């Protein structure tokens, strides 16, 4: 932000740093351990009076000098150069904090190289004692050089108390100083042994060669135990977040952990060849192979250290973007472009959106990423839509703290997403069009207030049932709509009929063959473990059938109706005709109609790419499903996509418990609602109800618009009842707060409808839902204390849920008021009164059953008292109806 960025669109600064660093670090460690190797081998040669061994030391010194002093020393300067080009802000901070540390290191280094030059040039020209004194001085100062560099490197990962104090010594003698110093010293000794093999393998005398090889083997293996123990110690002093980034929740570290393990096994496994008598050619080859492995080993270690340091370049002080956490608030409010000195664009507009996006990317992201090369963004983002990219930028540094948070305003975030999507990916988005719903005709069954004996009320339990209709890859919502019915015999004291009646239901024409429009019956065995006849739902119901009597209610559970009609028309509101018949005589007692709202407008594609699967109208495409599984596999180390490709798609709830489908899940795994809301809340925060309708079929311009009841008409949205996605997720996660995943998902979420996370009550999905009486205190509309939100005021128990609740006479709330999310009078874009058929049938008025004191619908005459609950008659405000 403070500095210009070197534009390396395809090579990448990170790769350049890695190449130079790995080469340098191997040699610089050798420079330390090799010094001790030289002087101790010289001492041995002198003590054993072994001229051949002494000659080996002399030759090895020359090899050592060329490697460490020339390449090691110069590549050290190279690291300094390259990091100051890629991340000048970080280098500036290191230089200005530790200038005298670097200066001290320089003194050590100067003594080191002078000692080595004299040691080399005066080999055989000085007495052994003096010559070895030089060797010892070389080693001591080389190790002191490591001592200083180690402190500064450790500071970058664990700055300790420096963060608060800014004190040089706090930063230098940081928490990882000691384990790192011991660890690196061990590496130095091991490398000394490995590189000793190289010159050793070229010795002509077999006996000397054998002795040298045995000695090198001791150097390789003796420090090993200390190395391992210190490595464990090392992982204990890094922050919990660093540890997580290394070993959990982060697939980025896996290749490097693998590299470290594999190269360790090869190094110390193949290294045993040093103890075996074999051909010199094989010894030469083996020595060179081990040297190569050293570089792989070091790459593994250094990359792991790098990953542990993420998302910072200087832990806790400066992100890898070069921006300090302390500056984030100002950058986010004033804008990155305004704050970045090296941006030629200072103000964002629709005209320069893409150009500004490129500019922000260049200045903020290029220090780690390329466009299409090493760590390229093009490849990493091709599974996301423009909207998904915005979400990804919002979620950076939250669920997975490996990435630093995006610095900038919402509009700047949008600019980067747009640039990646349109320019980098070269994709185009078809502007979202208002879905033009067909208005289907209604035929409302007759009702004669004077002669009809029964009133039959039928409703769907949830007001909408969504289907994840790509079972080829996974399922979390099978086709399964539930209709409930109550039958009342009219009279001054109406009678709730709960037996002696056959309640038949039948879907309208066009919806009779759901199996023609769904893969559900193809994968039911694999996903649900049951082989159902085509057209039959999970609880045995088809689209035509008989409801079961369940106390005062008749119900047909999980009717597998699809929103796709046989004539290729999309209609998410299929109408069922329900007929109550006398069980003994078969006489028709009452007939009514109700919608079974069902939608495949699952909004995953809004972020995860892919077109609509069904006639370009609705449904989850293969691409969307694949992208979702890939993301899940990447984040969680699962193999869901591979499983699905091999014909074994999974029910999400097979791991994630869910009361909605009565799935117990796997212990220790978040329940489905917690996981899906908790994860996505991190990516879709700050969006109020726009976050809800990205996934749920509630968009006004969408193909379902399921929120069609009275609350919608008066301007309420999802969040007034459920809270924002962040609130909603925090409540769910709080119920599983003991789990590491819950803590990880909730730590960066900020509540909106509560002043703190602690205020949010833990909530079990489906069993704890908003309580209508939170606002409708004493069944009033506003006069008795409308609080403005129902969030966090959950209904006390399952029986108190709106969809389960009855009055004192057993009349269910939904029977008169309609389905959740479609409270009478509702407005349905597939036909104004599609949801209001029963109010129109029984009272000719699209409102609550009995509204405007039409008590006669059931009671056959007017009532003078509130029978079911307060505020039914003599209301201050007349209830609204849909004309």
């Amino acid at each position, binding site marked *: 932000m*403070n500095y210009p*960025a070197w534009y390396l669109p395809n090579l990448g600064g990170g790769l350049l740093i890695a190449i130079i660093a790995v080469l340098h670090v191997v040699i610089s460690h050798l420079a330390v351990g090799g010094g001790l190797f030289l002087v101790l081998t010289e001492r041995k040669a002198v003590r054993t009076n072994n001229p051949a061994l002494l000659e080996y030391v002399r030759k090895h010194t020359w090899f050592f000098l060329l490697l460490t002093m020339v390449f090691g020393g110069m590549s050290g300067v190279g690291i300094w150069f390259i990091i100051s080009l890629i991340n000048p802000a970080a280098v500036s901070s290191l230089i200005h904090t530790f200038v005298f540390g670097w200066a001290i290191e320089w003194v050590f280094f100067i003594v080191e190289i002078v000692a080595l030059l004299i040691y080399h040039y005066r080999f055989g020209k000085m007495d052994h004692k003096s010559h070895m004194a030089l060797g010892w001085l070389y080693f001591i100062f080389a190790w002191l050089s490591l001592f200083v560099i180690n402190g500064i490197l450790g500071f970058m990962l664990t700055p300790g108390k420096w963060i608060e104090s800014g004190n040089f010594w706090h930063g230098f003698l940081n928490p990882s100083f000691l384990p790192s110093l011991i660890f690196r010293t061990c590496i130095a000794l091991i490398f000394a042994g490995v590189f000793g093999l190289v010159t050793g393998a070229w010795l002509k005398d077999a006996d000397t060669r054998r002795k040298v090889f045995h000695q090198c083997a001791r150097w390789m293996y003796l420090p090993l135990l200390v190395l391992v123990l210190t490595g464990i110690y090392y992982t204990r002093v890094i922050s919990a977040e660093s540890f997580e980034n290394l070993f959990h929740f982060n697939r980025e570290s896996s290749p490097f952990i693998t590299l470290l393990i594999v190269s360790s096994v090869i190094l110390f496994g193949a290294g045993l060849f040093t103890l075996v008598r074999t051909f010199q050619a094989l010894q030469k080859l083996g020595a060179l192979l081990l040297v190569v492995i050293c570089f792989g080993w070091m790459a593994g270690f250094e990359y792991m250290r790098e990953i542990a340091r993420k998302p910072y370049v200087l832990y806790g002080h400066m992100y890898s973007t070069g921006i300090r956490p302390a500056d984030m608030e100002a950058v986010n409010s004033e804008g990155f472009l305004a704050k970045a000195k090296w941006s030629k664009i200072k103000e964002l507009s629709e005209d320069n959106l893409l150009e500004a996006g490129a500019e922000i990317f260049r200045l903020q992201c290029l220090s780690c990423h390329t466009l299409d090369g090493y760590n390229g963004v093009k490849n990493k983002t091709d599974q996301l839509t423009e909207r998904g990219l915005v979400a990804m930028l919002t979620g950076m540094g939250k669920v997975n703290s490996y990435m630093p948070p995006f610095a900038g305003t919402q509009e700047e975030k949008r600019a980067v997403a747009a640039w990646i999507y349109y320019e980098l990916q070269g994709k185009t988005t078809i502007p979202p069009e208002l879905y033009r719903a067909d208005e289907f005709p209604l035929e409302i069954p007759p009702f004669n207030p004077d002669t009809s004996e029964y009133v039959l009320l039928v409703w769907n339990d949830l007001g909408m049932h969504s289907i994840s209709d790509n079972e080829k890859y996974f399922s979390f919502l099978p086709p399964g709509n539930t209709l409930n019915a109550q039958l009342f015999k009219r009279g001054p004291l109406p009678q709730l009929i709960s037996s002696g009646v056959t309640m038949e239901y039948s879907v309208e024409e066009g919806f009779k063959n759901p199996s023609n429009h769904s893969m559900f019956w193809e994968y039911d065995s694999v996903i649900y473990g049951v082989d159902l006849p085509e057209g039959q739902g999970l609880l045995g119901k088809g689209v035509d059938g008989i409801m079961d009597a369940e106390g005062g209610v008749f119900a047909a559970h999980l009717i597998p109706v699809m929103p796709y009609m046989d004539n290729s028309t999309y209609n998410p509101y299929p109408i069922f005709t329900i007929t109550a018949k006398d069980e003994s005589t078969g006489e028709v007692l009452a007939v009514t109609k109700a919608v079974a709202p069902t939608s495949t407008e699952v909004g995953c594609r809004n972020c995860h790419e892919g077109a609509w699967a069904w006639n370009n109208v609705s449904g989850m495409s293969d691409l969307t499903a694949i992208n979702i599984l890939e993301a899940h596999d990447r984040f969680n180390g699962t193999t869901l996509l591979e499983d699905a490709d091999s014909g074994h798609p999974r029910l999400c709830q097979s791991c994630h418990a869910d009361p909605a489908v009565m799935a117990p899940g796997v212990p220790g795994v978040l329940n489905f609602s917690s996981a899906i809301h908790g994860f996505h809340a991190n990516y879709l925060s700050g969006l109020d109800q726009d976050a809800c309708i990205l996934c749920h079929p509630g968009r006004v311009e969408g193909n379902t618009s399921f929120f069609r009841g009275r609350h919608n008409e008066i301007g309420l949205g999802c969040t007034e009842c459920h809270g924002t996605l962040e609130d909603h997720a925090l409540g769910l996660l709080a119920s599983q707060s003991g789990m590491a995943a819950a803590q990880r998902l909730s730590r960066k979420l900020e509540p909106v409808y509560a002043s703190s996370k602690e205020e949010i009550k833990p909530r079990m999905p489906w069993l704890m839902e908003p309580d209508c009486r939170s606002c409708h205190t004493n069944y009033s509309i506003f006069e008795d204390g409308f609080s403005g939100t129902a969030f966090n005021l959950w209904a006390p128990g399952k029986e108190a849920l709106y969809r389960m609740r009855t009055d004192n006479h057993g009349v269910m709330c939904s029977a008169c008021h309609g389905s959740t999310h479609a409270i009478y009078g509702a407005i349905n874009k597939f036909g104004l009164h599609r949801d209001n058929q029963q109010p129109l049938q029984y009272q000719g008025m699209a409102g609550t059953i009995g509204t405007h004191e039409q008590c006669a619908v059931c009671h056959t005459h007017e009532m003078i008292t509130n029978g079911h609950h307060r505020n039914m008659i003599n209301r201050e405000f007349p209830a609204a109806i849909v004309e």
Partner: protein
Amino acid sequence: MYDSIIPTADSIPVHWLWFQGLLILTFFIHMILMNFLLGGSLLTVWDLLRGKLEKKASGSIPTLVALTVNFGVPPLLFVQVLYGHLFYSSSVMLAVPWILVVPVLILAYYGAYIFVKQTDKAPVLSKVALVFTSLSLLCIAFVLVNNNTLAIRPDQWEIYFDNPGGWNLNLGEPTLWSRYAHFVLAALAIGALGRAILYRFSKIKKKEKDLQIRRNLKIFAWITLAQFGVGTWFWLSMPSEVWKNFMGGSLFATAMMVIGWIVALLILHSSFTGRLSAAMVLGGIEVFVMVIVRDLARTAYLNEIFRPSQLESRGEGSPLIAFLLVFAVGLFVLYYMIRLIFKSKAPQP
């Protein structure tokens, strides 16, 4: 306009004058070594072309590479402490040539060893290596001149926006070629002086020794004479507000420039008359004075933009004390090691 793109500088641990002093001191040492190296290697190439290659004068090139680079580290460190925000910015602008300095330097270093070690075994390879090393050093010097001039010209930095890929050599800089010529000539002059010193301590016949000393001192003198012209070219190619500083604009700057001229005249006298000790001392003084003049010129360039005195000091003295103690220990150990060389005898067979 360019004010807005100049990065904000970080705070420093102690008063800026500490770094200023350390910068001048260490840069002086680096310049001496660099001149010995660059000038020495170019003069060796010249010897080669004349068919009069002298191993005595050229065997120290690899060691000089090591010392020059390692004594280049502290001035690079201290210049980053004082001018880092300018220096990093200019480095990014010419990032490609700047990072190429490192591999070129490594190859040049190996080239120097090939030259020395393979003179007899592979003479052609050895000569090629020498030429490669010398040309590499010239290239590195050129990149350094580009970077250093760009760092003090933020008014030129908008070139970055047209080419952020790191290829912006500062070729439009009016002082570029005169500065480069001035520095390379200085390297040749001091390099010749260095060779004269080397011959002074070499174990060759006195007649040959005196001849070589006189010859190299003459080279030193002639190039110093040429520097009057090239130096003036360099001086006058600077902006008027800079060069006028050395013509009465600033008393101190003017005094330094005058001292530089006087010392140069004295160098001519001592070198043409073959007085090595005097030439040696005067050459050292001249380099030191020029280091100060260079620093004053930078200050004048940045006059309206930045002064190191503006840097906020954190008043953190203990690391400085630690450095000074370590520095003293380092000097003692260096002394001890050199003493060992002279005290120690070859081991008995």
